[in-house]
């Protein structure tokens, strides 16, 4: 058992966010930012089909310090709340090497769900099936139907299964007329063929224009086949020359029904400003500038900590006294030990819950915090302290002082 009647440690053990932990999103400012991003998606989904391409393209920037919860927010957007409206590709720019245009493009494609291209291929094949009569000549040619197969109702379905299992190659020379209407251009049809032939991921001798065209086609298909817009999340966006060149090309192309979400630190943003005024100007004009202002404030951090506990403790609630005690200790960590961001506090909380569980403690008290700090941050000292006072004693003294101040305040107010 863990403190506060929890069956598991509610805090993430990983030093960086992951998909599992990202389902929990606490903090007023983080939730407001999430709502802003969802509003942007809603807004794009609602755009009429007649709107021109420039009106159907959006840029979102999320600029905040390291450890403030940007990636957590981004992953939360990817895994929850938007599945009905957007197909999302998440790419961590720090994991791309060499960081050049082809590798960034490749990461944009592999950033979708693992079965995305398979589902795309399947839906394209059924799209073809829906637009032809099963006994027509085109159907027979595309799906290579035999005489008896064309007579049975399941002929094309069986052939589609064979194609998906890579046991059959369809004859795509006949699909131009099916897609070649006002919805899809010649370039689009060419891209569709590469998807069905499993050649989409082959990027040899692909030009920048080809990449833009392919991304544009994907956005079209996502809208036509799934009725969803496309969202590309670029985490750890930086001032790399190739990154900025590619981004400029994508922004200039105004790919319809597409959102670019760029996640970066103020430091990276300033570097872009000083090194590439052209792309900086475009980012300054972003449709949504998600501002996580105050994301490292004590109120936000304490709200997030409580959200984790609440998420895994639906049946029994943490009492007011327990909450007050826990928050007073977090406040000391925040103010007197300079743990100023949520990532640091979550790390301490994870370790504190593990230690408390081993000691069979039902709450996190000052001794647990003391032991946690000594184990996870050996040599840590209270800010500005000259005396070698133990952390638990300091927390006790500080809490007593705070509560005596509260009592004095109450007395003064009651007079």
């Amino acid at each position, binding site marked *: 058992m863990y403190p506060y009647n929890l069956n598991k440690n509610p805090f993430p053990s990983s030093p960086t966010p992951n998909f599992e932990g990202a389902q929990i999103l606490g903090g007023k400012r983080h939730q407001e930012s999430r709502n802003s991003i969802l509003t942007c998606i809603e807004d794009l989904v609602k755009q009429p089909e007649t709107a021109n391409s420039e009106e159907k393209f959006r840029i979102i920037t999320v600029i*905040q310090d*390291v450890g403030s919860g940007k990636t957590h927010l981004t992953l939360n957007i990817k895994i929850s709340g938007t599945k009905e409206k957007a197909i999302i590709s998440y790419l961590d720019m720090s994991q791309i090497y060499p960081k050049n245009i082809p590798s960034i493009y490749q990461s944009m494609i592999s950033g979708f769900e693992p079965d995305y291209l398979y589902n795309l291929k399947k839906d394209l094949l059924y799209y073809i099936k829906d637009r032809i009569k099963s006994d027509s000549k085109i159907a027979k040619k595309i799906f290579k139907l035999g005489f008896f197969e064309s007579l049975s109702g399941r002929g094309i379905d069986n052939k589609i299964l064979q194609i998906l299992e890579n046991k059959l190659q369809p004859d795509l020379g006949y699909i131009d007329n099916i897609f070649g209407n006002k919805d899809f251009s010649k370039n689009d049809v060419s891209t569709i063929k590469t998807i069905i032939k499993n050649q989409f991921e082959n990027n040899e001798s692909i030009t920048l224009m080809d990449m833009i065209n392919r991304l544009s086609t994907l956005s079209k298909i996502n809208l036509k086949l799934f009725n969803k817009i496309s969202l590309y999340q670029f985490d750890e966006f930086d001032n790399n020359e190739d990154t900025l060149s590619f981004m400029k090309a994508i922004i200039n192309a105004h790919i319809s029904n597409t959102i670019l979400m760029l996640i970066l630190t*103020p*430091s990276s943003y*300033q570097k872009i400003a000083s090194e590439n005024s052209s792309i900086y100007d475009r980012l300054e004009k972003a449709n949504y500038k998600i501002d996580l*202002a*105050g994301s490292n*404030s004590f109120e936000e951090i304490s709200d997030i900590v409580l959200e984790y506990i609440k998420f895994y403790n639906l049946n029994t609630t943490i009492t007011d006294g327990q909450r007050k005690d826990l928050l007073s200790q977090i406040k000391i960590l925040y103010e007197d030990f300079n743990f*100023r961001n949520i990532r640091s506090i979550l790390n301490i909380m994870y370790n504190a819950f593990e230690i408390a569980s081993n000691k069979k403690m039902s709450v996190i008290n000052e001794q647990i915090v003391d032991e946690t700090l000594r184990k996870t941050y050996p040599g840590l000292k209270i800010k500005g302290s000259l005396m070698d006072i133990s952390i638990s004693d300091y927390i006790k003294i500080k809490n007593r002082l705070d509560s005596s101040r509260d009592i004095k305040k109450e007395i003064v107010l009651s007079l």
Partner: protein
Amino acid sequence: MSLEEKIFDKIFSSGVSGLKKTDLTKEFSSVNLDNILNTWIKENKIIISKKGSTNYCWHKDHYFQYLLDSDPKFKYTLELLKDVDISFRKLSTSIDKHVERLDGKMIVLMDSILAITTKNHNFENSISHPQNVINLQNFSKDFDLTICKYSDSIGWVPLATLRNDLSNKYEISEKEFYDLAEQLVNENRSKYELSTGGDEGIMIRGLVYGYVRCL
């Protein structure tokens, strides 16, 4: 051997017993004995003193022994003086040791004072006008105004930019600026937000926070 040498040798050879002045006068009647003896007395070579009612002459070394043998008061006083001398020597040795230790400490102290003086000198050199006393309220106002002046669309400003402007205005060093900035941010945590990065800034938990904005 001259006559004077003979007289001196006679006195010396008389030893602890001494030599009657009258005997000398008889033996060396041809010279002015009183003049010679007075000269030696002045030079502290001989002593003339009475033994009974007769004047005797002693060589100074022998006279000391004569007093020891003949005068118990003198002997006792000498013993006391010897004790005093031993005590004094002991005290002197002890004082010498203390002085030696103090010398060592003084050297260390002097080195420390020298080091501090050098540091202060360097520090004083590093700041242009150490006599300036900064009013934190005025500094805060200028800090905010400079943030407004340089902030980008979401408000972030490199602290280096603020330092450049405010260090010039207040004639303070880089260190003084960041000390004041840190104090200001710590006292107004709900007002300011810091972000990591940059080449210079406020150090928190080993990270350089080089960007600031007003919330």
